[in-house]
């Protein structure tokens, strides 16, 4: 176990953590504001990925300038966030805010099931691998290992932009402060004149777009197949639960920890790689069930 190995594992870990963070960010934001754990978030990730792949194929076929490829990913994510996320919130989620939490969970689970089939009906069951963006950006060699510039630079930068952007947005813009108010106490915020309905809708759209962005940015590096939504959801869940639900900055830390731990596992003991995130989650939650960064809540009677 030498320094070289550590540095390479860290490089690998950071780029996978970047993707993980982007997806988890949307999930934890939505929980923070609406107190609903959106199981369908995995489907939003998948839709973002598939739409991005479709855009990539269109760009290649129509001979459009390749420089459009990267912005197309972001555009795809926003479209999914607004259309799918917005529709979901308006038609369904705002009507279940006062229901039993079990029912809320199971409704989002039903939505997840529906969207899985919709995804299969639109894009089919064969794998999509649209990686032109990655090929265009070239490679870099670090300590004898060659990485794609996409995974080494683009992904961590996007994650950083999202991290700083969200912090700025929440603290400095009016909408952001309204969101923070509603997260803290919905009733009091409404009493102070904040349109909570409006805020919920916008937050959901932002959260959905972030989830879709995770999928869109992941799509050039991996192959898209039915079922990735389920895998991503439970992994994102591990990230945000370990950090504490609703902890935006904390999720960045746990995403890094989990990403790097997995990378080390592949180098040292590959069998436990898939086990690592959940093991971390169990150990943290047994000691601190509210997560690493959340304050302990007094349970309401």
């Amino acid at each position: 176990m030498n320094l070289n190995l550590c540095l390479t594992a860290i490089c690998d870990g950071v780029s996978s953590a970047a993707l993980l963070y982007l997806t988890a960010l949307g999930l934890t934001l939505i929980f923070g504001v609406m107190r609903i754990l959106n199981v369908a978030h995995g489907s939003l990730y998948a839709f973002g990925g598939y739409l991005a792949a479709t855009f990539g194929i269109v760009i290649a076929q129509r001979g459009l300038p390749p420089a459009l490829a990267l912005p197309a990913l972001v555009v795809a994510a926003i479209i999914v966030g607004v259309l799918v996320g917005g529709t979901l919130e308006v038609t369904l989620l705002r009507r279940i805010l006062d229901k039993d939490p079990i029912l809320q969970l199971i409704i989002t689970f039903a939505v997840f099931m529906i969207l899985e089939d919709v995804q299969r009906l639109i894009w089919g069951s064969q794998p999509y691998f649209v990686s032109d963006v990655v090929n265009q950006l070239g490679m870099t060699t670090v300590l004898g290992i060659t990485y794609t510039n996409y995974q080494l630079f683009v992904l961590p930068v996007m994650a950083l932009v999202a991290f700083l952007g969200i912090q700025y947005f929440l603290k400095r813009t009016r909408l952001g402060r309204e969101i923070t108010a509603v997260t803290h106490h919905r009733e009091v915020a409404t009493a102070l004149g904040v349109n909570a309905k409006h805020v919920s809708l916008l937050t959901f759209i932002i959260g959905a777009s972030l989830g879709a962005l995770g999928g869109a940015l992941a799509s050039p590096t991996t192959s898209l197949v039915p079922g990735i939504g389920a895998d991503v959801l439970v992994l994102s869940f591990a990230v945000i639960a370990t950090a504490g639900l609703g902890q935006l900055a904390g999720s960045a830390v746990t995403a890094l920890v989990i990403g790097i731990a997995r990378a080390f596992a592949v180098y040292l003991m590959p069998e436990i790689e898939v086990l690592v995130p959940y093991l971390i989650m169990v150990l943290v939650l047994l000691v601190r069930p509210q997560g690493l960064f959340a304050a302990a809540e007094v349970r309401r009677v």
Partner: protein
Amino acid sequence: MKRKVFVIVAVVLCSLMATLGYGQQKPSELKVGITTFVSGPASVFGLPGKAAAEILIDDMNRQGGINGVKIIPIFIDEGVGGDKLLSEYRRVVQEQGAKVMLASISSGSCNIVAPVAEDLKVLNIMWDCSTEKILESHRYKYVFRSGANATTEMIATLIYVLKMKPDFKTIAVVNMDYAWGRDSWELFNAGLKVLKPDVKVLAELFPKFGATDFSTEISRLQALKPDVILSTSWGGDLDTFIRQASQRGLMRNTLFVLPLAESSLERLGAALPEGVIIGGIGDHYFLHPETKNDPAHKAFIQKFRAKTGSYPIYPSYHMAQALAALKGAYEQAIKNNNGKWPTTEQVADAMRSLTYKGFGRTLHMRQDDQGLEAQLFGITKSVPEYPFKVLDQMMIVPAELVTPPVGEQSLDWVKKITPAMLNSNQLKTYQYTK
């Protein structure tokens, strides 16, 4: 009185003889259940098999089917997972009355399905999966494999690698984590230890079946710098692995040995570089040096391209072999049965010791239900005629050279192989021709 008794006895005896001699009534159609991957990463592999089945069954039916009986295929998706596959398998046999099952692609599925087929007493031809353990662990009555098994495939691969690159020192393996991935490495490694014991194994990586991201494995391999990387991956998994490895330049300095990559040549196109060792799990190739000019083969390729837009790959060829075995066995059984429709047991008997042919070399079925199929290998090369790589410096290894005899366990047999195998005069080589 005596006359009446005589008449009654005669009538009874006659009707008895009539029922006994009548045998099985010829059905109006023969339902054949076919399992293949229609969803998930493996579907790039399973769908060509399905297309081939549709083309060939259509052809067979147009020529009258099997002795006048039409074949109706019923497709089952292997991609739904083991227990759902089993439910569907049972339903197709019991509710829809399939009499023959062609199952499956994945060695994992075959492991699950074989005992169920035996239980349900339905004829099951394993049309693509290779794990040798199924037929070696148990003597089956109803379960057959129409193609070669893992031992034949991996030892033949070993021979080709040793002849093409005799002096490599280190090797790493990246296989899919399931029965085939594990068994294929076990066999190759055992053979390697006998024929070239000084080779060091630097890493044994088993990403999960259906993995969509290999970046950490690729980083690790770049750090280790093996001379040879072996991967028996296939389908979408192989495509993703090669694309990612190619993007990161891993294929520049390492020899990749991909015994199942014939099925990915066209899809990968430019992403696959020159100088990669490729196999086809059998002698399957649309540019097969011995059969590419056969009229039947050319007609099949034409129909396949018209239907799917691509060249046939080895799942399609495996399907052709399995269907040929099916038809041949039924026809032989009918002959043995004096023209009457045979029972499943009679077909099974006829299938043992059958000779049949897909679009490669002729195959033989052994007494232990295992088919004997030659193996084709080559090295990738760019040519202007095709937008993807073709195989050059090809070699065909006959099955008899690299298959353990009936009744012997593969791992025991592998320990006894000798380097004399590498100089056998049964190995035939071919260069690429247009």
